[in-house]
Every structure is written in structure tokens, then in C-alpha cells.
């Protein structure tokens, strides 16, 4: 019994200063409308993939912008590109291009 709780428990602090923000910077540069997101959740509430999986566009891109990219590759693979999210976004975020740019960025890595 020499392991303390914090070793098994995951620390979920976002270490913003340590995180790599280059991926987010790439995506924002190629699809600046992402800057306008207000995290309203319209996209992820309407998303057919979110309804049946753990994927959420809203959360995924927010985490990416905080440099939390560990699950990004896995997350972005869920999208079906149906385009519902674009139709409901009140801020005109070009969600499908955000997804495309994330995929491009990941492929370049």
C-alpha cells in the first residue's frame, strides 16, 4: 500500500502553459470563424453522431483550443460530415471546415 490516491486518480487540470497550442493555432488560422464560438452547444445537441457516441464537436474543439489534444484524433474520426451543426450554429462557425482542418492538421503530424 505505498501508492497514494493521486497516483491512480487522474489529474485533470489543464496545464495551459505546458500544453501545445500549435494545432489549435493551425485550425484557427485556416478557419477563423471558430474564434466566434460561444459554446452554446447547438451543434453537439443536434449532432447525430453525438446522440450515439461520446463525440461532441463543441467539447472537442474547446479542449483543442486549450491544448488538450490527446483524444482529438479519435474524436474527430466520429464525425459523419452531415452538416446539421452548420445549420444551427448561431455564430456562423464553419464547423465542417473546422473538422476538415483538424483532420488535415493531424495528417501532417
Amino acid at each position, binding site marked *: 500500500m505505498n501508492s497514494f490516491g493521486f497516483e491512480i486518480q487522474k489529474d485533470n487540470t489543464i496545464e495551459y502553459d505546458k500544453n501545445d497550442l500549435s494545432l489549435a493555432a493551425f485550425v484557427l488560422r485556416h478557419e477563423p470563424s471558430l474564434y466566434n464560438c460561444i459554446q452554446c452547444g447547438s451543434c453537439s445537441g443536434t449532432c447525430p453522431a453525438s446522440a*450515439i457516441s461520446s463525440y461532441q464537436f463543441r467539447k472537442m474543439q474547446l479542449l483543442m483550443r486549450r491544448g488538450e489534444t490527446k483524444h482529438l484524433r479519435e474524436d474527430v474520426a466520429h464525425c*459523419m460530415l452531415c452538416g446539421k451543426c452548420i445549420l444551427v450554429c448561431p455564430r456562423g462557425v464553419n464547423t465542417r471546415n473546422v473538422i*476538415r482542418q483538424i483532420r488535415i492538421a493531424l495528417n501532417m503530424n
Partner: protein
Amino acid sequence: MKFNLFVLPFTIGLLVLFSILTAKYIRWFLSLSTDQRDAVIKNFFTLKTLSGLREIFLESLLHRNISRKNRLLGYMHMSLAFGWFLLIIVGHFESYSYFKTALEPPYIPIFLRYFQQDSLADPLQVIYWFVMDLILLFVLSGVALAWYKRHNRKHFGMKKTTRHLPADRIALSVLWFIFPLRLLAESITSAIYGGGSFLTSGLGSLLENNIASDLSFIASWWAYSISLGLFFVFLPFSRYMHIPTELVLIMLRNWGATKYTGKIDGITQFEVHSCSSCGICLDSCQLLELGHANIQSPYLFRNFRGNKLSDTVVQNCLMCGRCETTCVVGIKTNSVRRAIRQNSDVEVNHDYLRHVDTSFNSSPDVLYFAGCMTHLTPGIKKSMQAIFKAAKINYALVDEDQNICCGRPMMLSGLAEQSLAMVNKNKELFENSGAQTLVTSCPICYKVFRDEYNLNIEVLHHTQYIDRLMKEGKLALAKSEEQVVYHDPCELGRNSGVYDEPRRVIAALANLSESPANREKAWCCGGSIANAMLTSLEKKELAISALGKIVPKNTMTLVTACPLCKKTFASTGKHINIVDIAELVAVNLSAGKDKRRIWMFEKIESASI
């Protein structure tokens, strides 16, 4: 042996051209799919070959399609192509009449006036001279027009014309020189040796005193030969590659070998190389309104040929198909773009679909698949449910609670292979139901279910289904005096060919007016799922502009048949009622009970503040 050194540039050019063409064509033929190749073999010795040759004559030589767009433009193309063709053919006959053999080297008929300088006092020769002069004049008139067109394209019914690459420009300049040089060479020959007819001997007598000499005589033949040789060498590397390739494409098409396979194959190559960059399709592209001026099909094809594709040129397109219906060569621009977009490197993981339950606890006759978009236009969904109920149909709404996208948005984005998990899951769902008919409200779903799912269930768009119910007398409807205009959605109209059913349904319910740009000429609403690059403001701009062009002054209601069109047009905030056909029918069924919701806007009164 009839020979002179000056024929070498022409002969070498011709050999180079033939070797390159043969190499390329063999490569492309080898990359045909088995189906495509089988089609060629099966249909080679049939009437299809003849009809192909007929089409080549009508299109590649006479340029009938271009003439339909604009007479002058058609004449220009015809005089160059058909004229040149005649020069060669009649040249051969003339050559045969002198030398009585068909096995002359190919340069003989081309430089015939050099090799047959003497007058034979044969009336036939005079006739040949006259005919050849006439044909040359015909070709020269085309050259003159082509030159004039570079500077005054409006007279040719074109607002935009393609910007050309260096190789194209060189080939073009050389092409402009070929026929004037032939005229010069033949005229000087005539000045020195006599002969020729009204054109060459006429010009010859003008040149007789100052220009015609032994030196200018041979120099002019050299120049003519060099210009031909240069043109041949540049041809495979310029847009003029379309001249021979289009012939092959027409044959392949007639043999039924051009079916889209989902990837870049020999057919894609033949299609891409058949584009002459004529630019006739440019004016149909709505993205020009937004200033996106280098993504249109000819630019895509050219960049593909030159291996210089950029993300923008590939992706920034609505795949509305407007250019496809305008293309005078009949290139399947949408299929080519889709093939070019294919990218199997993109990782997609739809494993979560495994958990979706596809069992059915009812046994419906008809399945209704609303579609992703239709969940955002519940007016359409509810109207369809009311229609099923009124017609007493045993139906089931498949995607009530959760839905899997049909897969077409991914296919259009280049992820066709990756969409298979979705496709299969949906198929499983449809087939488990035991239903005979699948009805959908979304033209995007309709297109893919019908053309790519290989279902053994009949697939109908709701406009077709309503049309059928009306024919069968299952809906009690009455005509109203409402004035409406119909908008053909790209995916339903141009891309699926459904034009008449929607019109029949509307005409039975309201006064239908047609916008000038209807059917295959219809505008895209701008919301196309195939374009991920446009900003929301740009899409709105396209929608506003399209609305302005579609809706006549005295009409307040636009009827469409696509949830995406409906949403896109509605987001313009314009005071126009945007209504789906299903809603029009449902309101009619309810004897106008829901009328207020659909007709939100009455006529705006004039001149009141």
C-alpha cells in the same frame, strides 16, 4: 522520292505527337476498370460505334453544341476544326488524283502545292485548287474570329474566359500562325509557278514583284512546316490535347464505358484531357459572384493535368452541377471532381454504429426516412406524416429518434470508402423492415439511396411519392389561387433528373410560375453540403442573390423540395414564404388550417412608410 528537308519539322512533330498520344492512351486504357473495359469490348462491333462516329462528326467537327450556345462561337470552332479536317481530307484526294497512290508519306498532301507545282491543264486540278482555296479561306475566317474573340468575348456570348497557361499560350500563338503561313507559302508558290485559285493566286499576284523569290519560297514552306511541327509537339502538353482526346471520350461514352467508379481511373483522365478550357461553363458558376475565380472545372482539370492541385481548387466548389450541364463537351465535371477529392488517408471511425439497433417491431409497407436536415425543418416531417395518414399508408418513420447520415456528404467530401459503415448500417435498417418502398424528404439522401445503395427496395423522393398518391386518387386536394414559383434543388433536379413530379404536384394545388432559370439551369441555394469552405456570410450572399433571380415580382411564395434549400433560403431573412411541397400538400389536406404558418408574409403594400 518526293522529299525536301523542310518537311522534317512537320514529320518529326507528327511522330512525337503520335508516340506521346499512344503512350498516354494505352496507359489510360489499362487503368480502365474491368466493367469499363468489358463495355468497350462488348460494344465495339455494334451500331454504337457508328453512332459514336456520328457524334464525333457533329460535335468535334461541326461543334453543334457550341453553336447552340452562340452561333458566332460555334462558327469559329467549326471553321477551325471542320475546315482543317477538310483541308486534310480534300488534300488527300487531290494528292491521289496526281500521284495515283494512297501510300504517300503523310507530308505530301499537307505540302501538296510544293510537290505538285506545275499546272497540268487538267480541269480537275482547277477545281481542286478552287476548293482548297475556299476551305483555306474558311479556316482563316475562324482564325480571325479566334483572334478577335480574345479581345471582344462579349460578342461570343461569354462574360468570362479562361486565363491560359504558358504552354497553352505558345500553342495558341503557333496555331494562329499555321494557316496564314500556309496561305503565304501557297501564294508565293503560285506567284512563282502559277496555279492556285482566287485566294492563293490572287495574293500571289500581289506578292509577285517584291516578295516572291526563291528564298522566300523555301523559307515560307519551312515556316509553315515548323509551325505545324511546333504545334504538334506542344499539343499533348497544352489544352489542345482535347482535340484527339475528345474523340476517344465520345467513343467511350457511346460504348457505355464511362460509368463513374469512385476513383481516378482512365475515364477520369480522358474526361480531364477532353476539356478545351473553352471557358463556356465559367459563366454558370455562382462562386464567381463571390469572387472565387480560379476553382471552376477548367481550372480544376488544368491543375490536375499539371499536377498542381491545391486544397482550394479541389474543395471550394458547390458540386451544383451547373457547369456540367453547360459543358459543350459533356464532361462529367461532378464525377471528375468527386474522383479527385477521394482521399483514403483520412481516418474515420464509425465503430459506434455497431450499437445502433436495426430491428423492426412493425412491418410497414413504406419507410419514411426524413433525413438529417429534415429534423431541422419539422414542418416537412410533420406534413409528410399527415400525408401518409390521409392516404392511409402503413408506414414507419425510420429515423424518428436517432439517425445515421446517408453518407453522401462524406462521399462528396472525398470519403466514400470511409462512409461504408454508415451505408451498410442504413441498408441493414431498410432491409430489415421488409418494406417495398423507401421515401425520403431530402434530395441528398434520395440521390445516394437510389444510385449508390443498391437497394432491392424502390426509392422515391417525397415529391415523386406524393405525385403517385395523387395519381392513385389517395389524396383529396383542391386547387388554390396562391401564386407560387418552384425552385429545383440541385440534388433533385440536375443531379437526379427529377423535374416533372414536383411540378405536377404544385400545379394541382396552386398557380405555378416558372423562373427563367429553372430545371437544369436552376441556381444553387448556396447551402450545398459539398462545399466546406464558404463562410456563412458567403452562403447567405449566394442565397440572397439566387432568391432575387428566382422569385418573380408578383410572387411571395417560393416552393422547394429540399430541407437544405428551405433552411438556406429562410436564413436570408427576406420577406418571402419558403415552403416545401409536402407542406403545400399538407396545408391543402387540412383545408388551410396551418395556412398562417406557411404563408407568413402577405404582399408588402406599396408606397407606405
